Structures are given as C-alpha cells and as structure tokens.
C-alpha cells in the first residue's frame, strides 16, 4: 500500500511548461487576435443582427425582401458552385493522368498547373475579356472560321470562367497529393483479390483520394464566393461581394445591408469549411508506408493516349490564357477588336516605373511588415500548441486558422467599423491609417504562416529539445540554440508565402486605402484597369506583381524542399 499523498502543487508556469517571457508573448498574440480578428468580425455580426431593441433579424429580412439582394445571393451561390464544377472538369482528369500514368513531362505539367495560383483572378480578368470576350481572340477566330460565337465572358459566365481557371489548381494540388499518398500495396491488394480497371479505381483509388478532392473543392467554393475584384472588373455587380462593397463605399459604413452581406459571407465560408472538415473526419488516408512506393503507373495506350494528349494541351492552354493575355496586354500598343495586339512596346513598363514607384515601395513595406508579424505570431502559436501546456493554446490556433474563413471584405468592413471613431493625433481615423492595412494583411495571411511554422516544428523531434535540457540548457537557451535554428527554414518559407500572397490582396485593400499615397500595387492594378488607356500600365503592374508572387512561391518551395531534404538525410 502506498501512503495517500495530495498531489504537490506546482507553480503555474512550470505546469504549463512555459517561461515568463513566453507567457508575455502568448498574451500579446491573444490580444492581437482579439483586437484585429475577433473584435472586427463580432462588430460586423453585431451590426447585422442588432437593432435598437436588441437582437433582430429585421436587417436580414429586409435584405431578402429586396429582389436585387435575393438575386445577388443566388448568383453568388450559383457562380461558386459552377466554378467548382468547371475547375473539377479541368483538375480531376489532369491529376488522374499525372498520378496514374507514365506521362511525358508530368513534372512540367504539374508546375504549369500551379501557375494560376500566383496570379489573383482580378489581374487576369481584363485580359480574359480580350481573349475570350465577345470580340476577343477566340470568338473572332471562331466567327471567321465557323460563323458563330460562344458567350464565354457574358455576365456570370465570365466570372465563373475566370474564377475556375484561377482556382482549379487547389483541386489539382490537393487531389495529386492525395493520389500520391496512396500506398501501392492498397492497389495491389485489390488486384490480388481480383479487382482491376474501373472497378479498382472506383472501389479503392477514388475513395482513398476523395478527402483530397473535397479539401480542394471546398477551398475553391469559399475563394470564389468571397472574391470581390473579379466581378467588379468584369462589371458584374449583382453578386454579394460587389454589393457589400458598393453599399459601404456609396451609402457609407452606417448602412446595415453591407453588414448583413458580410455576415452571410462569413456564415457560408464557415459552413463550407465546416462541412468539408466534417465529411473528412476520421478519414486520414495517409496510407503510404515508410519506404513504400506510390500507386503503380501504367502505360497509356492507343486512343487513350491521344485523348490524354489533346486534353492536357487544351487544358493547359486555357489555364494559361489569362497569363498569356496579361503579358500581351502589358506589351501591346492597342488591343481591341483584333486577334492579337496591333504592335508591341515596353512603354507601359516605363510608365509604371515613372508614375508609380510609390506603389511598389508601399507593397514591399506593407507586405514585409505583415509577413514579419505573421512569422512571429505563427511561430509563437506553433510553439505554444506543440510544445507547451498553456491553457487555451488550441483556441489561439483555431482562431488564427479561422481567419481563412473570414473574407477580406468582411475583415475590412469590421476594421473600418471598429476603428473609424478612434482618431489619430493628426485627426484622421485610425481605420484609414496605412498600418491597419498591414494588420489586415497579417491577419488574412496568418493561417499560411502558421501552417508553415507548425509543419516546421512538427519535424523537429521533441527529443532534440529534451537532449538540450538534459545537458543543462534552460527553456530560453533551448529555444534560441535548438528550436530557432531548426525552424529557420519553415519560418522563412512562411514569411515568403505571406509576403507574396499579401502583395495581391485586393478586397481589403480597396476598402482600407483612402489616399493614393498609401496605395500598394494591387490597388494600382485595379485603378489602372478601370480605364481603357490604363490597361497597358495596369497589365504591366500586374505582371510585376505576378513575378513577385512567383519568385516568392518558388523561393518558399525551394526553402521548404531544402529543409525537408536536409532533414530526411538525417533520419
């Protein structure tokens, strides 16, 4: 029999596995998220559902009583669903061909397939008009050869088309990864038991890859549902995001309709992501064994091979058309009612470097600061979650990740509403200070940086830190000498990802920028694209932004890859 002893009371910090400075950092992280993510969203919800007599659904009822808003709501759902469908038509066959067959140049195609991700849809929208529009390249050729035109870009079609072309890589990448993670033995066991061909695919491969598809498809749905820039540039205003923007900018930040729309967008985003998570619960199909091979690749034969070639070529040409278009636009003199621009020039690039160095400088400043904040917040949250027993650490993580489901326009409206009445010393509203744009960027991109940091820290076996403590290093010394150097790659990758993607944020930029002197590149592209004369310089600016993002994406990929290789050699 042991003697009954009350459990010893230990100091809190000790029980939480924390040091004092780390606790201070945790408080800072919590405060930041509360002030700049939770509070703005709560304010938006509050205005939408709060009347003079407390809680009310009056605003929502008013919203749905107006036919324009009903139509906008249905249009947004329709566009998002159709974009998922069209993106699937491109991505699913592409992923299947690349993962399951010996296809020449598969790596190159995979890389080309990811390119659309580095350009936000609004940049390519105008170029898409010139290629696919009523009097664009394709329809001019079609009517010349066959005497008819196809309304690719008419009304909602245009939004669906542009969005699908930009977001299909989310499905392609997720599905490819899911297919690649299926262990060859899964398929072999099925074959061993007599399954082959279509039945093998339907019963074994498809169910195993389904979680990857659902993850990608739900992301596409949310992104399309939230997008503001594309419909605005295509002059489609009868959708939710443009309506919210127009109400706030024309009627003012007191108008409840904008908030109702914002609330609907949050609810839809959360619901789409929640449904995806729910349907994937308990389906972690990482079946890949250590050292095991992926799915067996087979040879493409005869007709199938020709069909695959035709599909891949057409899909890639279509997917890259916005990029080709924007490049042509940035280099062309006049491009209107013609298959290609009339002549070529570099004058547009000269124009933007002469007229708008401020845009470039602002972008570097804002995105650099935002990415820096993200790395600090992301690194800290990752550490708290994976290495400490700080109470509420998971709440920090969930809140930070939840900003994925908060559309940029909603966050911007919330920040405007929350911080408009707080005045800076010079009399301007705090909400219009450029620092708030940095904070909005940081909040919006935090999930990416956090993912990167979590992945990096997970790779570091806990025993590496324990070994340091065992040899006499305290918490701080262990963090500085072991954790930080080993996480450096992940932190850098997170920084670059945040930086690059923040550089092309439009929806919150449009709402939060109030002076031209404060505007970043994305704002500049939007303003230039508004006028026919500005399209050339706008496209040049867009190309510049794409180059920045592409370089960033490439660098972050290289860093992550090098990190992974270095580590895998070690184990």
């Amino acid at each position: 029999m042991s003697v009954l002893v009350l459990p010893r009371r230990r100091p809190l910090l000790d029980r939480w596995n924390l040091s004092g400075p780390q606790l201070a950092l945790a408080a800072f992280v919590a405060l930041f998220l509360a002030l700049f993510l939770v509070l703005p969203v709560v304010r938006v919800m509050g205005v939408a559902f709060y009347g003079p007599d407390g809680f009310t659904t009056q605003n929502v009822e008013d919203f749905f009583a107006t036919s324009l808003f009903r139509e906008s709501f249905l249009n947004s759902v329709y566009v998002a669903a159709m974009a998922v469908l069209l993106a699937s038509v491109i991505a699913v066959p592409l992923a299947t061909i690349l993962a399951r067959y010996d296809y020449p140049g598969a790596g190159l195609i995979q890389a080309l397939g990811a390119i659309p991700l580095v350009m936000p849809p609004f940049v390519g929208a105008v170029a898409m008009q010139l290629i696919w529009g009523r009097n664009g390249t394709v329809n001019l050729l079609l009517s010349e050869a066959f005497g008819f035109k196809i309304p690719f870009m008419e009304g909602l079609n245009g939004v669906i088309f542009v969005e699908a072309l930009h977001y299909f890589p989310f499905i392609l990448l997720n599905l490819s990864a899911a297919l690649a993670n299926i262990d060859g033995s899964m398929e072999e066991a099925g074959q061993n038991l007599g399954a082959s061909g279509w039945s093998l695919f339907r019963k074994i491969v498809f169910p195993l890859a389904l979680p990857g598809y659902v993850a990608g498809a739900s992301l596409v749905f949310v992104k399309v549902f939230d997008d503001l820039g594309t419909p605005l540039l295509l002059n489609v205003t009868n959708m939710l995001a443009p309506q919210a923007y127009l109400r706030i900018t024309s009627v003012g930040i007191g108008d409840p309709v904008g908030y109702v729309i914002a609330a609907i967008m949050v609810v839809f985003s959360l619901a789409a992501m929640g449904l995806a998570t729910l349907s994937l619960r308990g389906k972690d199909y990482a079946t890949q064994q250590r050292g095991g091979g992926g799915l067996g690749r087979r040879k493409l034969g005869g007709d199938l091979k020709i069909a695959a070639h035709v599909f891949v070529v057409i899909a890639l040409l279509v997917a890259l058309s916005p990029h080709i278009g924007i490049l042509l636009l940035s280099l062309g003199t006049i491009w209107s009612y013609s298959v290609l621009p009339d002549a070529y020039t570099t004058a547009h690039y000269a124009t933007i470097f002469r007229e708008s160095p401020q845009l470039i400088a602002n972008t570097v400043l804002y995105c650099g600061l935002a990415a820096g904040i993200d790395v600090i917040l992301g690194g800290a949250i990752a550490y708290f979650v994976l290495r400490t027993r700080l109470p509420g650490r998971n709440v920090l993580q969930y809140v930070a990740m939840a900003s994925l489901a908060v559309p940029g326009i909603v966050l911007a409206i919330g920040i405007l509403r929350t911080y408009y009445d707080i005045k800076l010393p010079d009399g301007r509203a705090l909400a219009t200070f450029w620092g708030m744009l940095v904070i909005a960027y940081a909040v919006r991109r935090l999930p990416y940086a956090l993912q990167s940091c979590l992945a990096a820290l997970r790779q570091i076996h806990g025993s590496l830190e324990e070994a340091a403590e065992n040899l006499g290093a305290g918490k701080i010394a262990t963090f500085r000498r072991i954790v930080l150097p080993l996480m450096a790659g992940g932190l850098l990758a997170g920084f670059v990802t945040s930086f690059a993607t923040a550089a092309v944020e439009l929806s919150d930029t449009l709402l939060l920028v109030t002076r031209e002197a404060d505007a970043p590149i994305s704002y500049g592209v939007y303003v230039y694209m508004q006028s026919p004369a500005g399209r050339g310089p706008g496209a040049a600016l867009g190309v510049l932004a794409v180059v920045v993002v592409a370089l960033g994406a490439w660098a972050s990929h290289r860093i992550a890859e090098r990190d992974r290789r270095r580590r895998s050699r070690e184990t």
Partner: protein
Amino acid sequence: MTAQGKSGVEIKGLSFGYGAELVLAEIDLTVAPGEFFAFLGPSGSGKSTLLRLIAGFGRPDQGRIRIGAEDITDLPPWERRVGMVFQSYALWPHMTVAENVAFGLEERRLAKAEIAERVAKALDLIGLGSLAERRPAQLSGGQQQRVALARTLVIEPRVLLLDEPLSNLDAKLRLEMRAEILRLQRGLGLTTIYVTHDQEEANATADRIALLDRGRIQQIGSPIALYDRPANRFVATFLGAVNLIEGDVVELHGRATFVGPGGLHVPVETAERGPAALALRPQALGVDAGGSVRLSGRIVAREYLGATLRFGVATDLGELIVDVAHRPGRAPLEIGAAVELGIDPASAALVPGAALSAGGR
C-alpha cells in the same frame, strides 16, 4: 572523465498518470552506485516513462526521486546532471559532431580551450575523433549512437540513462554496441539505467533488472534470479518459454507438496498453501533420463533450434515443451515416439496464487 557517476538512484512511492490514466503506480526501487540496472518490460509497461521521469521530462503525481542524497523531484531537467541517450539519438542536425558534443559544456560556461579539450577526449573515448567536423546526417547508425553517448558522457553525469539505445541498429551492430556500452560503463564505474524490451539485452548487460508490466514493478532481481524464481506468472512467461502447471499446494506427510492434474505430486519449499502453479523451464524436463518425478507421454511436435531440439510432448498434464540438447550426428526422436519425462523438483519454481488474479495477469 573522472569524477562522475558514483551516486545511486532511489525512487520511493512514485505514481504518474496522464489525466485519469495511470501509467506508473507505486514504484519503489533503489539503484546502487555504479550499478548497471535495466528496466525491462513489454511496450506500454511504463519503463520509458519512468526513465523520462528520472531525467525530469514530466513530474510524478506522487513519490520522490533521489540521486545520492539529493532529492531531484522538483528540479527541472537542465539542473539534474543526469545524462540521457535517446532512442532516436536526438542529434541536432544543424550542428557538427563536435558542436553536438560541446553543447552541454557550453551551457556549463566552460572556457573555450577546456571545451575543445574535453570534446576531443570524449570523441577519442568512443573512437570517432576523426569525424568531429561531420554532420550527424553523414554518419552511420552506429556512429550516431556513439556520438549520442559521447555527448552525454562529456558532461560527467551522475547517472547515465539509456532509452532503448540499440533498437535502431542492425543485429550485428547491436552486439558490438552492447559490448561497447558495457565496457564504457564498467570503465567509468557509471551508475546506469537501461530501458529495453529485449530480455536477452537486459540479461547480458544488467547487474539487476526491474521487470515492469502495466505500470507496476513485477519483480526486481538479478537476471538469473528472475529466470529461476519468477514471482508471478507474468515474470515466468515473459522471460522465455515455460510450462505452467496449475494445481494446489497441500500438506502431505508433514511437508508442502504441489498436487497437479493426472496425480502429479512434487515436493516444494513454501510456507503457503492453496492454489499455485508449477513453472518448469523446457530444459528442466529430461527425456528418458533421471528425475524423481516421472511422466509418460508422446511426441507431437518438434522444432530444431540449433543447439537444442524443442519437443511438444502430450502428457496427462497437457502438452509440455521440452528442450533437449542436440548432439551432432545423433538421430533425433521422431514425432509419435513414446517418451518418459523426468522432473527434477529442484529445478521447478513455484508461482503462488490462483491463475487469474496473480500478479496482475
């Protein structure tokens, strides 16, 4: 590396759990200074957790841990001066071998020159002086193991803790490293606790073993004591093949006698009466040889194990496992052959208690 490791370890009334789940219960044990002690047990028995508690990774819910005269229960890991070698080695990939080994000395704020000297000495001790500037990734498994050892030994720990140190090595290397660890331990006279699930490893190295199961110590003793005199059925079956014959200990002609099925009577030395089991190792049963208790049976199975032949013999007591030394050139017994088994009561061990309740198994 001189002044290290002459402290013993004492654990008293230790319990530890994650939430409601009890991982370790009522652990009491003492490791003598300079002793090579093994925690042996199946996976999930709590042996690694116990080792990690000694290193300070986790705090016990109850109980105290002492090293020498000092109570270390409340010290953080970095103030305990116990050296731990991790199962995964935990070599830091961003540092060279020399930097890995120097780490603990730098944390102790030693002068640069002294650090360099001690690192060189430690690397020489494990025979890796020429690889000081390599990165862990460039080393073989055995070399990584040595570096992990050097990194720990260089801080002159009071106790050396080894967590399944050989599990990542191939069979041949495992034997080499086992001998190497034993040589270092004996040479330095270092108090050592070694966690393993491999009974052969524990038998070959340890002075004493604590056998754990389900978070409790089942028995502590020398390897031979555990094998010959198991305290319960778990200990008997965990340490190699055994025939467990269930029966009762009764008073017969004024002395304790084990009475089993089929009229088996074996005189035993015990003060207790009641249900018990007789543990007979396969080699304690002779075929067609002497022994005061005799038993007839028929061979129903045969395995050739190299030095021995293992027979399954059907008897009135059920099927028994019997090992017979194999002599080269002699034709072994065939399946179906009738044999006479002899039991030497002196080589039988009595396991007290009824079958289901005893010893937690």
